């Protein structure tokens, strides 16, 4: 004889459920009859088990998803930190290059300085020309 007690129905284990069933006038003996008419206990058991499996699967999926989410978040954060360090390194490189450029600009300006060129020319024995003969443009044009 299969009794309802052998089937772990979801609602069957609580005291309140038992009380409800007692109040409806039914006994645990009547239940096999109803089950026998609608569906077999085996099918019900399988269905219940399947439901439990689904809940279990859902829970596992949720946990796995949360874990994956956490892994993604951590990996993204780590990647961001690494990228941040990389950015900082590149910014330092950029600043150093800018510094080098400004130093080269200063060096170039020093080399272009007329006073330095004059001093170098003087060292080479050149003297400042006091008079440079110039030919006015007008007569030349007239001759053409």
């Amino acid at each position, binding site marked *: 004889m299969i009794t309802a007690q052998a089937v772990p129905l979801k609602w069957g284990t609580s005291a309140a459920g038992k009380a409800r069933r007692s109040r409806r006038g039914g006994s645990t003996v009547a239940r096999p009859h109803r089950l026998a008419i609608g569906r077999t206990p085996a099918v019900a058991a399988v269905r219940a088990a399947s439901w439990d499996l689904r809940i279990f699967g859902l829970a596992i999926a949720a946990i796995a998803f949360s874990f994956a989410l956490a892994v993604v978040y951590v990996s993204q954060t780590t990647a961001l930190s690494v990228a*941040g360090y990389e950015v900082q390194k590149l910014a330092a490189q950029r600043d150093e290059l800018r510094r080098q450029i400004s130093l080269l600009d*200063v060096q170039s*300006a020093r080399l272009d300085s007329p006073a330095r060129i004059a001093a170098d020319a003087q060292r080479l024995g050149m003297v400042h020309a006091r008079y440079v003969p110039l030919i006015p443009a007008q007569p030349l044009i007239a001759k053409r």
Partner: protein
Amino acid sequence: MQTVRPGRLRLLFALFAVASLVLAGRLAYWQTFGRAALLARATDQVRSDLVVAAQRGVIRDRNGAILATTVQLRSLYALPSRIPDKAVAAQELGVLLGRDPAPIRALLESGAEWLYVQRWLPEEAASAIAALNIPGLGFQTEPKRLYPNDAIGAAVLGFVNDDGQGVNGVEGYYDAMLRGTDGRLVVERDPANRDLAVGLREAVAPRDGADLTLTIDLVAQTAAERELAAAMKKEHATSGSILVVDPADGSIRALASAPTYDPSAVRLADPEALRDRAIAWPYEPGSTMKAVTIAAALNEHLVRPSDSYTDVGYTIVGGRRLNNALGKAYGPTTVSQILERSLNAGAAWVGTKVGAQRLGDYFHLFGFGRPTEVDLAGEVSGTVRPLAEWYPVDVGTASFGQGVSVTPLQLAMAYAAIANGGTLYRPYVVASRRDADGEHRTAPVAVSHAITPDTAATLRSMLLSTVDIGIAHNAAIAGFSVAGKTGTAQIAGPDGSYVDDLYVSSFAGFFPADDPKYVVLVVLDKPDSRLLGTVTATDAFKGVAQDILRYARIQPDRRP
């Protein structure tokens, strides 16, 4: 078998219970009331609040050559306790820094935890020291204002002190504009002091200072500095100044002042050298002022160039006798010849015709007695006393430039007005500034119309004669027309009386005389040659003028 008494167990339990309660209470406190303080302390350990310094603007000449710029240079610091062998380190540093190792060693053994060994190192020295890899030595970059042309243009540029504040010249006048606005960066850092990409980050970007382009031409400036230095050396003059001005708009092309200094090494400079003679040296101009007196008389139609008087070597004004230089008499003399011969008596004769009131008015129209409002820090106004304070003789002495004081810049601008047809411009040195909003150009400002174009043209031809056949013939340049006037002024002593045998020698001129492109003023204080100091001044004028003529490719307007 020994058993534990229940009373002891209860006591132990009670102790644990109390301890747990205390800990729980403490935990609750830190989670509630003490949370903010705890959080602040934790945040302070990782957060850094930095001022991001704005870059000071670059100053360039009119052709884009860098005159002043800020560069991040490496400063060498030491943590002496971490240096294994201080004697060896000092020896090696001494060689690379070009310093005596003994003071460096004393510095390292001073007991300080952290100190600068040397700030703002040359790049080569910094790299060489870094290559030594001495433990306990490190570098920190610091901004340093550099002037690639050394002392050239120091008077125009001014300098930046150790606090980063601009002093004198353009650096002082435009300090706020050049300096910009500092930014701020609040960021969390890891134990290695690196910024964290994830975390708190608040940034206010710095606003860099504006870049300035000056009206100064480095070639003209170099020529002016060279000629001034040569004249100072030859005459052992105590000070001097050379100005080059574009009469068309009042822009200053060169401004030299002596003694001078290196703006990169101001600490070594004589404090007196920091004064820009061109704008902060009021002196009695002497005969260069005669052109202004005659301009007033011509403009008021009181005289013509051909009008004459009989020169007896002196004139009496206000009961005082005013002599020509050396007391020489010239007989019949025209107004043009007053300039050609630089006659004090003639200038006083013209001055009395103009009258004190009008002469004072023209002095003001030509910009004397008030600052020119040039965009340089430290300008003084010179002195033209109020008319109510003039003695009768003053109209005579002021006519030939004694009893009034002017700055070299004021006189140069007055000659620029004569050169350009009568318009007095406000002088300026900053042609444009470039900031985040774009480029802003300086517009020339006409301050007054001192004389009519006809008067200016007449006066130009008179000043041309002064160089061609007159006292200033030494200023003549082959192939070019030059107009100008010499000046030899007595110097007033502390008691107000003139000192014997001490003079200010000067020459103010412009070229080409018919269509002036440049005005050049040379002033020398107390030259050894005394009355002949003007010869050195005209030599300096020629030196500057010839360089500019060649450089600006100005065509000769005369046959050489």
